[in-house]
């Protein structure tokens, strides 16, 4: 039990990038757009956040750079799929390929440079509470942001009129268009929000989780975030649950590697990926549940008739 309590803060840190990227993608998919470029936007966020922190000396300035870069990069996807109605699956893939390439090129000179870590910001008063304090209230800024974001997105989607509009656009863009909603405008904003979240997730990786730059440092987390959205059936609170479960799996396999147990490290390292597949199968086999929650226009092209 004590070991688990000691592991909890690291689990939360490992889960935060997944949570951020998945919550952003959830909003994008709720608006009816499937952006498979999460991995690419995340790694662009990671490299620009690292560069920004190096240039200014401040991890917070770096974080802002990561958010802006993620949002700007997602505009490429938005322009192609929303304005030019290109295939969303293929465009998302190209965003990932371009992001991995660009980040490798930009980050070439950063390899081996010691990073600037974003320190913890214990919340005065709350952080002193025994047991709970160190686990919940002694984290870095991005962790607090991730929790606030889940609450905010839940509130926005299910408690505001704009959120209702966004969901109706995702479920039937033709009717929404006929009712006078700006389908393309809302989708552009959603895509940029998703990009900003993925950028922040990347910033967390290169400023908090492992404060350095290594090529391909996202290591498939963007794809796991996409799977988390399916796992959560497009509900923000379940994204939180899923992200922490995955955080536990990846930290668990790290600790198992430390203990040895005679299991080759490569097998343990593949656990998060295999867990993703297993979870995907368990969720998807219930066709009725998936059909009920999937935004009906997810991935479908929209051309307004005039």
């Amino acid at each position: 039990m004590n070991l688990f309590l000691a592991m909890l803060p690291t689990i939360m840190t490992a889960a935060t990038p997944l949570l951020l990227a998945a919550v952003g993608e959830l909003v994008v998919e709720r608006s009816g757009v499937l952006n498979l470029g999460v991995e690419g936007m995340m790694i662009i966020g990671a490299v620009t956040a690292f560069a920004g922190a190096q240039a200014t000396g401040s991890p917070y300035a770096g974080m802002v750079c990561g958010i802006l870069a993620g949002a700007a990069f997602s505009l490429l996807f938005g322009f192609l799929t929303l304005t030019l109605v290109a295939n969303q699956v293929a465009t998302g893939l190209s965003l990932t390929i371009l992001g991995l390439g660009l980040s490798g090129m930009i980050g070439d000179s950063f390899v081996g440079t010691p990073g600037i870590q974003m320190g913890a910001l214990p919340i005065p008063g709350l952080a002193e509470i025994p047991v709970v304090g160190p686990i919940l209230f002694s984290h870095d800024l991005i962790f607090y942001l991730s929790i606030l974001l889940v609450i905010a997105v839940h509130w926005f989607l299910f408690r505001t009129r704009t959120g209702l509009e966004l969901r109706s656009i995702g479920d039937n863009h033709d009717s929404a268009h006929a009712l006078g909603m700006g389908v393309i405008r809302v989708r552009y904003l959603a895509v940029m929000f998703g990009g900003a979240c993925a950028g922040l997730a990347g910033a967390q990786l290169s400023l908090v989780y492992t404060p350095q730059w290594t090529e391909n440092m996202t290591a498939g987390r963007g794809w796991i975030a996409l799977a988390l959205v399916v796992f959560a059936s497009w509900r923000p609170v379940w994204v939180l649950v899923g992200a922490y479960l995955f955080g536990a799996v990846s930290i668990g396999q790290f600790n198992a590697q430390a203990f040895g147990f005679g299991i080759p490290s490569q097998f343990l390292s593949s656990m998060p990926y295999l867990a993703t597949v297993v979870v995907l199968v368990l969720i998807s086999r219930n066709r009725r549940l998936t059909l009920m929650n999937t935004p009906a226009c997810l991935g479908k092209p929209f051309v307004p008739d005039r």
Partner: protein
Amino acid sequence: MRLEIERRATRSSLYAALSPFIALALTVVAGGIMFAALGKDPFSALYSFFIAPLTSAWSLNQLAIKSAPLILIAVGLSVCFSSRNWNIGAEGQFIAGALMGSILPVMAPDWTSPLLLPIILVLGMVGGALYAAIPAILKAEFNANEILSSLMLVYVAQLFLDWTVRGPWRDPQGFNFPQTIQFSDSATLPPIYAGGAAHWGFVFALVAAVVTWFMLRRTLKGFEIRVLGESSRAGRFAGFSSRRMVYFSFLFSGALAGLAGICEVSGAINQLQPVISPGYGFTAIIVAFLGRLNPLSIVVAGLVLGLTYLGGEAAQITIGLSEKVARVFQGFLLFFVLGCDTLILYRIRLVSSRRASGEEAAQ
């Protein structure tokens, strides 16, 4: 000013033919701007990236080596993507084929027979197909998204290969390097002509392209693939099963990716290493789209993308740029291809905002 698009009454065959070339031209322009931004002379950089690799017999051989896996994989993917099955885990199937095909050369290195090479190649195809069968089963039987499952299996395959060459298959005389023993001569895929470097994988790629083209355009199976890709509902009325198509397209593309994997190992690398592919499985996705899912055009597209790998290596040596420039080029290219394809189905117009608001006021 804003862009408006309008559906064409019929597909524009003019733009269908032109769009890959427009995309290529735009990629070259974007690349020139990128080189200039990096402080290099764009013309000499573009020359050493795209033209210089075509000027020697050695590099033409290298081009064939790099293009062979791209074409083989992309031809398989054309069947998948035409039927709307998104297999994006070809990189993992490539590795699985390489591993399965290496069983005999690594575990029974002394066995020689004229049948050895054909067995190795078939085992490679079986390995790739079996690995592709996993996402296929998960999609057909459990409704699991094939994009995510096939991609996750890439990471698993990479880690498994890493374990194999560091663990059970490590060459005992290899000074502790993470690699297997070298393939024997009879397990090595020979060059196409004596003295050349390009192996028979390139010929297999051409054969696969022609056979698949024939299947897609001239047989009932090809019709089935296209109907199910356009509309699985219409396909069902015609008596086609989209469930069976999941299996067919995944096994077919997995087998070709596996063949590409074992050809690369047996013909080019000659042993297994922790990393055996510079991302062929992902680049092949670009090849498939640049060749607009037509196996014959894919041959050309594969040569173009193969050239970006050579250009990347050349850029590293002659102008001191990171070899990652190649990945950036590949990403640009796919973007422009997808953007230009809009012209086939839609007309694009620039509308001045004054006119647009005037129209709204009139309504």
